[in-house]
């Protein structure tokens, strides 16, 4: 199992550009999450999904969009990038309702200039 994989590892965007952060898991997990981590702060939930076709907002969804067309993939879309979106983004997954532990990917570092 590769676990949770994320691409790219690092990206520089100009203000106003758009991009998609990719996340995939090969563990057949139903739940998937996107977090952002800013220096000195705890991880904040952006969006989550409880299964293919079902997504919902977390604490900090503004400026982002997600889709979940398959169990394996959960891409995060940034539209009109802003400097405030400079952060490290982590994708996570967990099996289901009775298993609470979330497993994280290696992260994508994004710099918006």
């Amino acid at each position: 199992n590769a676990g949770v994989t994320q691409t790219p590892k690092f990206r520089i965007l100009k203000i106003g550009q758009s991009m998609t952060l990719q996340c995939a898991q090969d563990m057949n997990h139903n739940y998937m999450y996107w977090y952002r981590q800013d220096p000195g702060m705890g991880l904040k939930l952006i969006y989550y999904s409880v299964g293919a076709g079902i997504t919902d907002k977390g604490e900090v969804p503004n400026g982002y969009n997600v889709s979940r067309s398959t169990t394996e993939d959960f891409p995060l879309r940034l539209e009109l990038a802003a400097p405030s979106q400079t952060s490290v983004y982590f994708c996570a997954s967990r099996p289901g309702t009775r298993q609470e532990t979330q497993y994280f990917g290696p992260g994508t570092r994004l710099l918006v200039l």
Partner: protein
Amino acid sequence: EDQVTQSPEALRLQEGESSSLNCSYTVSGLRGLFWYRQDPGKGPEFLFTLYSAGEEKEKERLKATITKKESFLHITAPKPEDSATYLCAVQAGRNSGGSNYKLTFGKGTLLTVNP
């Protein structure tokens, strides 16, 4: 609102010097408390899940304990390779607006173990 406070923010130990990290939490019905280790430039790595007061989990030099208000991560005879940021997170047991699905994280404790 769920809250997690970790202390200290940073801890520097000598190799072999045992200590504890603290995680104080406020949550409406604890569904689980999680400890993760995060190395620089990496994603959080799962260590332990604790579900109720009095529970203990151990792994090598690490032992996690929990009460109704706080959790401790005890590090016995640490080695330099234990240097990392340790994150604590809680999941609420209530079912409202999907909030029972999310983890609330503390800011972490940066542990440095000197040889």
